[in-house]
């Protein structure tokens, strides 16, 4: 008993640890969180999967054993109590009861008849016993089935735990301890996984996952265990015909559905069935659930814009999700790994965050990896997003998964395209055009009045500034100021420099359009803001981490459905145990065991005593009531 309670306490504490520490994360995440020392310690303690660790299961087994022992030892006693009338009570012991009353009656035979009727009406069963001194003891009881409550609840705990242990991975744990099975930790194709890491179709219970792209089929699933996995073979093949997400008018997902085809030699023709969340398919004792979804290799057509050269036209790149593309050559080669495509993105873009979230269209997630293996992650939206009333092409970037995404915002031009910015950027970053931009700007700023020397000097410094901006954006310009200008004049110099840069940008804008054969109209506020945003974006390019910008041009979506497959033969045990548990609890709480002894003495005295196995107010109140009722019953004529 005490042992069981201690075990339960330990289980409780272990369970709390399991809720506080996120379970079953990829192991590198833990290393980053705790550092190597604690990671190793926690791993030895099995804290990353508390509920399946050996010690947790051992405690559960002990709990089952200890509770079973308890039932084995106490049930006979309980059942005896359930049947017993305790007719052996002596007058002396009855007189020691706290709940007792005595009455004087006229005739004991008449009194006996009334007592019998009294007890029967109140649902008491009784057993009369003649005593040696001529008196008669009527031992009565009601609510004896309360005792069953103990047996039922304790049996329920054992049954539920056994069911849970069967469905947990105890069978696998045993096989692993004995060396028959081993977790595979290498990322290799399924058919190369050795037999020691495969579980056959005969495996009693499992909970495994399968990711199926549309059109694909498979007859194996994967069980993630600690930092590796096992392959679970299935007695049939599942094909995914189509995966669908439906949305509410507000954009939130309404349903996830997969059209499946079960291909099984035992079937005359494949079985078609659609599963959705809350509506699994159960076939051959294996339940197939709609669990999650992901991309299944969407085809992507991309425009790759160079960010630092003089070229403003993109090159076309074709790829799909999970396929890599290499851009550049030799040491400069960069591998682009496309990880995810999302058709719908519900974002709240209102400045105060109080507006309605809405769908902003598709985005892609990709990593850019250099020859050293260093990678940055990018999240790029296909369509320009509306921010503060203007439209921007937005791409988030981060160097490590722990960082927040930092966003590059490129202003969309009047045609909602990237081209306007890219043309301006190419002009600004073309060293061959710096002279021309500077000349035009000088002409604008000074007119014809200034002398040639002044003019040349000014023009040369504009070129220098353009070169500086070209080499490192505002940061570089700030450094130039720091190097060349003494501290007190810096602020003023910065203002002048900024004014020159934005003036030169306007010239670059006109020049770029001229070269592209476009007319430039009146300079309005719209264009001014566009130019300012473009300048900021150009300066931010130096922190973008990649020398190209990938813009999603077209796509052909292919989805994959995440299925969960389970076989849990322990489920019926658990449900059966649950029924026992509820019955037991109601019996324990709402059936009250009460006993009454009526001792009818030859001296015409009647002794009434009452007891319950639980002393509480109900007993007090019921006793008071009975005492009064008996008084009226026995002492009336």
């Amino acid at each position: 008993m005490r042992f069981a309670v201690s075990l339960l306490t330990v289980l409780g504490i272990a369970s709390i640890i399991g809720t506080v520490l996120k379970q079953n994360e990829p192991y590198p995440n833990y290393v980053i969180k705790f550092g190597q020392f604690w990671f190793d310690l926690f791993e030895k303690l099995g804290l990353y999967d508390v509920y399946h660790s050996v010690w947790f299961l051992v405690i559960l087994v002990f709990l089952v054993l200890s509770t079973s022992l308890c039932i084995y030892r106490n049930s006979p006693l309980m059942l005896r109590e359930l049947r017993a009338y305790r007719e052996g009570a002596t007058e002396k012991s009855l007189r020691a009861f706290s709940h007792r009353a005595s009455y004087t009656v006229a005739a004991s035979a008449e009194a006996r008849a009334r007592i019998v009727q009294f007890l029967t009406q109140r649902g008491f069963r009784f057993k009369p016993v003649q005593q040696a001194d001529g008196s008669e003891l009527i031992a009565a009881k009601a609510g004896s089935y309360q005792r069953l409550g103990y047996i039922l609840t304790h049996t329920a705990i054992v049954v539920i735990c056994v069911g849970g242990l069967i469905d947990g991975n105890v069978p696998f744990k045993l096989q692993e301890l004995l060396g028959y099975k081993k977790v595979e930790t290498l990322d290799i194709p399924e058919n190369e996984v050795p037999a020691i890491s495969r579980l056959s179709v005969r495996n009693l219970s499992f909970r495994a996952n399968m990711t199926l792209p549309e059109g694909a089929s498979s007859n194996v699933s994967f069980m993630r265990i600690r930092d590796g996995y096992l392959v679970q073979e299935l007695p049939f093949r599942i094909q995914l015909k189509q995966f669908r997400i439906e949305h509410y008018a507000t954009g939130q997902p309404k349903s996830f559905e997969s059209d499946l085809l079960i291909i099984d030699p035992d079937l005359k023709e494949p079985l078609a069935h659609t599963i959705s969340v809350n509506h699994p398919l159960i076939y051959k004792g294996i339940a197939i659930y709609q669990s999650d979804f992901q991309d299944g290799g969407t085809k992507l057509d991309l425009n790759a814009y160079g960010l630092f050269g003089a070229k403003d036209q993109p090159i076309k790149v074709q790829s799909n999700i999970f396929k890599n593309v290499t851009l550049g050559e030799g040491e400069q080669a960069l591998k682009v790994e496309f990880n995810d495509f999302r058709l719908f993105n519900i974002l709240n873009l209102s400045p105060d965050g109080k507006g309605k979230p809405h769908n902003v269209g598709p985005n892609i997630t990709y990593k850019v990896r250099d020859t050293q293996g260093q990678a940055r992650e990018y999240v790029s939206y296909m369509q320009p997003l509306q921010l503060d009333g203007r439209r921007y092409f937005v791409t988030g970037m981060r160097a490590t998964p722990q960082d927040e995404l930092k966003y590059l915002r490129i202003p969309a031009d009047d045609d909602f395209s990237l081209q306007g910015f890219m043309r301006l950027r190419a002009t600004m970053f073309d060293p061959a055009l710096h002279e021309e931009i500077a000349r035009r700007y000088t002409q604008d700023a000074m007119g014809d009045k200034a002398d040639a020397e002044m003019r040349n000097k000014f023009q040369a410094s504009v070129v220098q500034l353009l070169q500086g901006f070209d080499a490192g954006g505002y940061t570089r310009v700030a450094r130039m100021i720091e190097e060349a200008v003494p501290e007190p004049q810096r602020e003023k110099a910065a203002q002048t420099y900024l004014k020159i840069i934005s003036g030169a940008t306007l010239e670059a804008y006109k020049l770029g359009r001229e070269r592209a054969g476009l007319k430039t109209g009146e300079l309005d506020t719209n264009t001014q803001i566009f130019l300012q945003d473009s300048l900021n974006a150009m300066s931010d390019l130096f922190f973008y981490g990649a020398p190209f910008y990938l813009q999603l041009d077209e796509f052909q979506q292919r989805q994959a459905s995440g299925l969960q497959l389970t076989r849990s033969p322990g489920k019926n045990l658990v449900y059966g145990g649950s029924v026992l548990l509820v019955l037991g609890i109601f019996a324990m709480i709402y059936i009250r065991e009460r006993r009454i002894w009526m001792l009818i003495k030859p001296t015409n005295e009647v002794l009434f005593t009452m007891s319950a196995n639980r002393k509480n107010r109900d007993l007090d109140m019921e006793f008071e009531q009975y005492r009064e009722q008996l008084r009226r019953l026995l002492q009336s004529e």
Partner: protein
Amino acid sequence: MNTILFEDHPQPLLKRLRWQDWLYAILLCAGALFAYQQYGAYMDAYEKTFLIGAALGFSYLGWQWKPMRLLIPGIAIISLFAIQLYQADLARAEHAFLLKFLISSQSAIMWMNVLFVLAMLTYWFALFRRSEFSGKVATSLTWSAVLMGFVGLMVRWYESYLIAPDVGHIPISNLYEVFVLFCLITALLYLYYERRYETRQLGGFVLLVINAAVGFILWYTFDRQANAIQPLVPALQSYWMKIHVPANFIGYGAFSLAAMVGSAYLLAERGILASRLPKLEVLDDVMYKAIAVGFAFFTIATILGAMWAAEAWGGYWSWDPKETWALIVWLNYAAWLHLRLVKGLRGSMLAWWALVGLLVTSFAFLGVNMFLSGLHSYGTL
């Protein structure tokens, strides 16, 4: 003699019923029949069972606990009246006078909040002034709050279908809605014990915890606009929700009630308010009865949750933080009952424990959603 035996004899329930009881039951059955006749074609077997079950179940409840015979028809009449006022146009909640100020779901729930606050103040006033009349007023206020709260939920249910037919769902699906449910269930449980034990003095204590929830509802409404009706995510589109959530909240409500009675017990034991509060053994008994009810329903709710999980998540038990904390709450109260029933423990120890139990329960209810992540991520703050 026979007359005495007859008078004292505990009568079976059916013989104790009066004409009002029968009228009430007939009314409920007629309502159910009407609903069946109107909408039977759209119901599946499960919904039909529930319709019949509700008519029978609420009849029985009303027979056992007489005030229900007024409350349930009252909720029905006012809700139906409100629905009529809508004329199938959600915008009328802002225009029609009665809807705007009284019985649109938002207004009704606001009235519930106000009435609960007033009820609490009146209960405390009655306690300090030993005023029986004020106590009765407080009880009536609490009943009115319950009435308005249920009307609010019923109308909200209807409103959700006005937004769009596919959005419509029972209003127990997010934190805002279940907080209203929590207030109502806790208040009903209290009102039951108040009548049964004639203990108006406890009202102030129990209404404290209800008003804490009211405070949360107000903050949630005004600061987070969480009162907006949101469509159901796919995982919640299941009939299990309709029984799992209410069963759980009977548990939470009963545990909270027990904790507040426990606090009254601790005060009375130290002589504070002792002359005004019920006797210690009455407090002890109410506390026990509340935990017993809560435990039974919490067990059922957890089992129902497991059965739902088996259908939605692919396993009846996934050691999801919410599940695990439900287990911890369950073990906590199992130990409480065990010590009381088997070891005969009584008194302040159990009262303290019931109070601490409220902390554990609150963490399972709210803390898990706030601090831990998992499959139960519907009610995030």
